[in-house]
C-alpha cells in the first residue's frame, strides 16, 4: 500500500474521530466504573478491636414532661480501621451517634443542628411521631450557608413541615411501648450516602413493663449496630455516588444500583470487634444498619445446649413470649432484641457471630470470648409482655396491594410501576382504621412503613415466617408475597413507606400515604 498524503490524512482523521476522541471523552467515566468494581478496603485483622458501645446522649435540660437534647451533625475524623483516619458525618461527630434513652409517655425534643455541607432530614425509625417531626424526605434542614435555590426543585417539593436553615426541632411524644428504635438521615434522594457516612444512632424507649423484667441489664445489655462499609486504601469511606458532592445528581454507579455492599463488617463502628463476656446471659439489641446487606446470623460454634438466639423483642417492642432461633435473618433497618446465653460455653471459648450470607471477610461479624465466671443474675421469663392486641383482620376496611420492583441498571425502582412523587398520595387510610396491605416483589426488599407498627398476617399464602413475630415496622421480602395489617394513627398527615435498601429508596422506591 502506498502511503500518500491523502491516505495519511484520511487515516489520521479516522483515527482521531473514531478512536482518540471517544477514548479521550470516555476514559474518565470508564475509570470511575472500574474503580467501583475494584475498590477493596485495607486488610484488617479480625477480632482485634474491642467492641465500642455508643455513649448515651445527655439532655441539656429536663422538665416535668420533657427531655431536651441538642445534637450537632458535623464532619469528624475518626479511627475506624486501626491506623487509618476516616472522615465521617456523625450526630455530635460520632458514628454511631449518641444513644437517646427515652421513657414511654415522656416527650423528647431534639434540636438537630446542621454543620454539614449538605441538607439533612432526621427520621426516627419505628417512632410513632407527628408528621412534622417524622423526617419527611423533603423537610430538609439546610446548612446555614447553603441556599435553597441551589438544589433542583424536586428535592424540596411536597414538604410536610417546610424546610429549615441551620437547625430544626423534632418532637417525639414516645406514646408507644418500650422498643429499640434508631434515628438516621432521610434526605430525599441521598439517604444512602448520608447514612453510609455515619448519620445513624440508637433511640431506646423503656417502660415499666420492661423495667419489671429480670432481663440482662447494665453492661450486659448492649446495642449492636451491624453494618458494612468499604474503605479506600487511604482509609476514607468509598461510596459509588454518581455525584460525590451530594448536591446535584442522585444515584449510584451501575455496579451498586441493586444496593451497595461493603467488604468490611462494622459493629458499633468497629471492624469485626471482640467482646469479652462472662458465662451468663447477655441482651443484644441488634440493628441492621447496612444500606443493602441482609445478614443470616449464626453462632459458631453453635451452643451445645439450647438455641443460639432467644428473641425477646422485635421492631415494635417486646414479644409476648420468647422465641428461639438457631439462626437470625436480619434485613436492613430491622431490629431483633435477643438474649445469648454464654453459660452454654466453657470458659475460654471464642464464639464467632457469623453471617451465612457472606463470604470471605463478610462471613464474620464479631466475636465473643467467654473469659470469666459469674453468677447468673438474670432470667428470661416465659411471659415477657402482656398480649399484644393485634388488629383483627375482620375489622379491616380496606385491602391495598403494592408491588415492589427494582429498576434495571440505571432505571428507577418502583412501587406499582410508579416512582416516588412527593406530591402524589398513593394511599389514604382513614384515621384509626384498620387496613390490610399486600406486598409482592422481586428480591430483595425490606419494606418499611413510617408511623405505624404492623403484624405480618401471612407469607406466600401461608403462615408468617420465623422472623415475623411481634409488632414490626419493616418486613423483608425475598421475592415474597406478604400480607400485613395495621391500624393507621394516631396522627393525621403525610408519611412515606419505602424499600429500606437505601440505593433502591434513593432511586425512587418510595410512596406516600396520608392518614385522613
Amino acid at each position, binding site marked *: 500500500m502506498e502511503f500518500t498524503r491523502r491516505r495519511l490524512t*484520511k487515516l489520521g482523521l479516522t483515527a482521531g*474521530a473514531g478512536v482518540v476522541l471517544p477514548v479521550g471523552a470516555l476514559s474518565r467515566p470508564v475509570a470511575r*466504573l472500574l474503580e467501583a468494581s475494584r475498590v477493596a478496603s485495607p486488610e484488617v485483622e479480625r477480632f482485634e478491636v474491642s467492641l465500642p458501645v455508643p455513649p448515651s446522649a445527655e439532655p441539656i435540660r429536663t422538665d416535668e414532661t420533657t427531655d431536651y437534647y441538642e445534637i450537632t451533625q458535623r464532619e469528624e475524623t475518626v479511627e475506624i480501621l486501626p491506623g487509618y483516619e476516616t472522615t465521617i458525618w456523625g450526630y455530635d461527630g460520632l458514628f454511631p451517634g449518641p444513644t437517646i434513652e427515652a421513657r414511654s409517655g415522656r416527650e423528647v425534643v431534639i434540636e438537630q443542628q446542621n454543620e454539614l455541607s449538605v441538607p439533612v432530614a432526621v427520621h426516627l425509625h419505628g417512632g410513632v411521631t407527628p408528621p412534622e417531626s417524622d423526617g419527611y424526605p423533603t423537610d430538609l434542614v439546610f446548612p446555614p450557608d447553603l441556599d435553597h435555590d441551589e438544589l433542583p426543585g424536586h428535592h424540596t417539593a411536597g414538604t410536610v413541615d417546610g424546610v429549615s436553615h441551620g437547625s430544626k426541632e423534632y418532637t417525639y411524644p414516645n406514646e408507644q411501648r418500650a422498643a429499640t428504635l434508631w434515628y438516621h438521615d432521610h434526605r430525599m434522594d441521598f439517604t444512602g450516602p448520608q447514612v453510609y457516612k455515619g448519620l445513624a444512632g440508637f433511640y431506646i424507649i423503656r417502660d415499666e413493663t420492661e423495667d419489671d423484667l429480670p432481663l440482662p441489664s447494665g453492661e450486659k445489655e448492649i446495642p449492636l449496630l451491624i453494618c458494612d462499609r468499604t474503605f479506600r486504601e487511604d482509609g476514607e469511606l468509598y461510596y459509588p455516588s454518581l455525584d460525590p458532592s451530594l448536591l446535584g445528581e442522585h444515584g449510584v454507579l451501575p455496579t451498586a444500583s441493586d444496593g451497595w455492599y461493603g467488604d468490611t463488617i462494622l459493629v458499633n463502628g468497629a471492624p469485626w470487634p471482640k467482646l469479652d463476656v462472662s458465662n451468663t446471659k447477655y441482651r443484644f439489641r441488634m440493628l441492621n444498619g447496612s444500606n443493602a446487606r441482609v445478614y443470616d446470623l449464626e453462632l459458631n460454634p453453635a451452643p451445645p445446649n439450647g438455641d443460639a438466639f432467644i428473641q425477646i423483642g422485635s421492631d415494635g417492642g417486646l414479644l409476648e413470649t420468647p422465641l428461639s432461633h438457631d439462626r437470625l435473618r436480619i434485613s436492613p433497618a430491622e431490629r431483633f432484641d435477643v438474649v445469648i446465653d454464654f453459660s452454654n460455653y466453657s470458659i475460654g471459648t471464642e464464639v464467632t457471630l457469623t453471617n451465612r450470607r457472606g463470604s470471605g471477610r463478610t462471613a464474620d461479624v464479631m466475636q465473643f470470648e467467654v473469659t470469666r465466671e459469674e453468677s447468673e443474675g438474670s432470667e428470661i421469663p416465659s411471659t415477657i409482655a402482656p398480649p399484644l392486641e393485634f388488629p383483627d383482620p375482620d375489622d379491616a376496611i380496606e385491602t391495598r396491594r403494592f408491588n415492589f420492583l427494582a429498576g434495571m*441498571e440505571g432505571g428507577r425502582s418502583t412501587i406499582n410501576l410508579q416512582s416516588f412523587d412527593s406530591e402524589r398520595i398513593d394511599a389514604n387510610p382513614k384515621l384509626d382504621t384498620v387496613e390490610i396491605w399486600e406486598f409482592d416483589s422481586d428480591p430483595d426488599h425490606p419494606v418499611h412503613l413510617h408511623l405505624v407498627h404492623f403484624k405480618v398476617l401471612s407469607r406466600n399464602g401461608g403462615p408468617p415466617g420465623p422472623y415475623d413475630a411481634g409488632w414490626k415496622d419493616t418486613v423483608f421480602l425475598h421475592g415474597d408475597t406478604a400480607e400485613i395489617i395495621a391500624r393507621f394513627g394516631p396522627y393525621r398527615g403525610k408519611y412515606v413507606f419505602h424499600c429500606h435498601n437505601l440505593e433502591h429508596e434513593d432511586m425512587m422506591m418510595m410512596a406516600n400515604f396520608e392518614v385522613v
Partner: protein
Amino acid sequence: MSLDPQPKSERSLLGSLSGESVTRPQYLTAGLAFVVELLYLWVAAEALLFWPVHGAFFAALAIGQGLLAVGLLFDPGRWTFRLGVLFNAGLLVFWVIARVIGTIFPVWIIAVRTPVDSLEYIVMVLVLLLLLSLIWMRKNSN
C-alpha cells in the same frame, strides 16, 4: 462521484494536505456530523456512569457520526451518502418510537440523563439537518 472541483484559490488546508478539492457543502455537512459526534460523546460520558449499555450505545453513535464526517471530506462516494442517510434516518425513527413509548409507559423507557436538559432535542435537530444536508448533497452530485 465527484463534486465540481473548486479553483485553487478556494482549496483549504485540508484540501492541500489531502490533495482533494473539498467543497463548502462537504465542509458544512462534515462539520455537522462532527458536532453531533461531540455531543453524543458528551452524553455517552454521562450515560456510561448511569447505565453502561446506554453509554456504549451513544459512544457507538458518536463514532459512527465521526467516521461519516471523515468520509464526507474525502471524495465521498454513493455508499457514503447512502449509509449516512440510512444511519441518521434510522436514528430519528428510533428516537421518535422511544419518545412515544416513553410517554405512554414512562417507566419502561429508561430516561437517559443528559448534561443539559434540552440536549436531546438539540441533538435530534442537528441529526435532522445532517440528514437533509446529506440528501441535498446526494441529489446535487447527480
